[in-house]
């Protein structure tokens, strides 16, 4: 088997298990309210971490580059209550423009 196929199958199988862990192992049972409260805080914590890594992580370095323009444009669009597609478009356009002109 080639390295590519071995990687594809191993990552595919591992991801199927990771995604199923919650819905298959925990699904159908109710959780204690305190645990639900804790789990509801996972959303903002994870999304904020994803913003930081998508915007600033470059391998193991934190880098300020064209993506910052995309995040700034996205933040402005969010503040103006723009629809999601406009936020995405603003982020892409600003990143591409900053990369092209700076």
């Amino acid at each position, binding site marked *: 088997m*080639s390295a590519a196929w071995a990687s594809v199958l191993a990552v595919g199988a591992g*991801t199927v298990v990771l995604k199923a862990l*919650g*819905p298959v192992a925990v699904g159908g049972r109710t959780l204690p309210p305190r645990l639900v409260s804790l789990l509801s805080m996972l959303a903002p914590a994870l999304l904020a971490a994803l913003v930081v890594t998508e915007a600033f992580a470059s391998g193991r370095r934190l880098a300020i580059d064209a993506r910052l323009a995309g995040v700034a444009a*996205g933040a402005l669009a969010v503040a103006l209550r723009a629809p999601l597609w406009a936020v995405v478009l603003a982020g892409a356009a600003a990143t591409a423009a900053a990369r092209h002109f700076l």
Partner: protein
Amino acid sequence: MRRGLRAAAPLLPAAFVFGASFGVLARAAQMGAAAAVVFSATTFAGSAQVAAVSVLGAGGGVAAAVAAALLLNARYAPIGITVAEAFRGRFLRRLAEAQLVVDESWALSGGGTPRFDRRVLLGVGASLWVAWTGGTAVGAVAGGAIDPGSFGLDGAFAALFLALLAGQLRGRRAAAAAAGGAAIAAALTPFLPAGLPIIAATAAALVGWRRP
């Protein structure tokens, strides 16, 4: 499902173009078109797939490529647990539906909040899967030069996560969890392999342990 489709509509072109660029990158890293499409269909997680392909392309070997990709996907364990309660029925059905959990489908369906709607998650996830896998097929077969950087797609995804985060910021505890998560991810990025800082950021959710 229909509400999920509507919610996903603005993301589909980006998912398709990102999928196509992944297909191009995979071919450049000596991965065959069939392997690239099977990768998107089974793993269905862009950052992990791009990470695996880049490690392979740099000669990093199968073990390093698999480890990098699974570390990036380890966040799906806590993410899956936030929505686990809504999944009912037979083992195989839950197993199949769980595969439609991706960051965007989870966030758009109110994952981790009392408003969570499983059908929205399935609608968003299924339509994103079609766009992502279809885009990969087009990119892998055509092999044209689609550079995610010159289209600004990397910055677009950061902006997207920011918009999704804004929808989650209700109350001071959510803001504290977000600030904590961002700080942890930023602080640990220089010291840990990609993916781990995001997992570590879940520690910020401990602000939810105390009753309001």
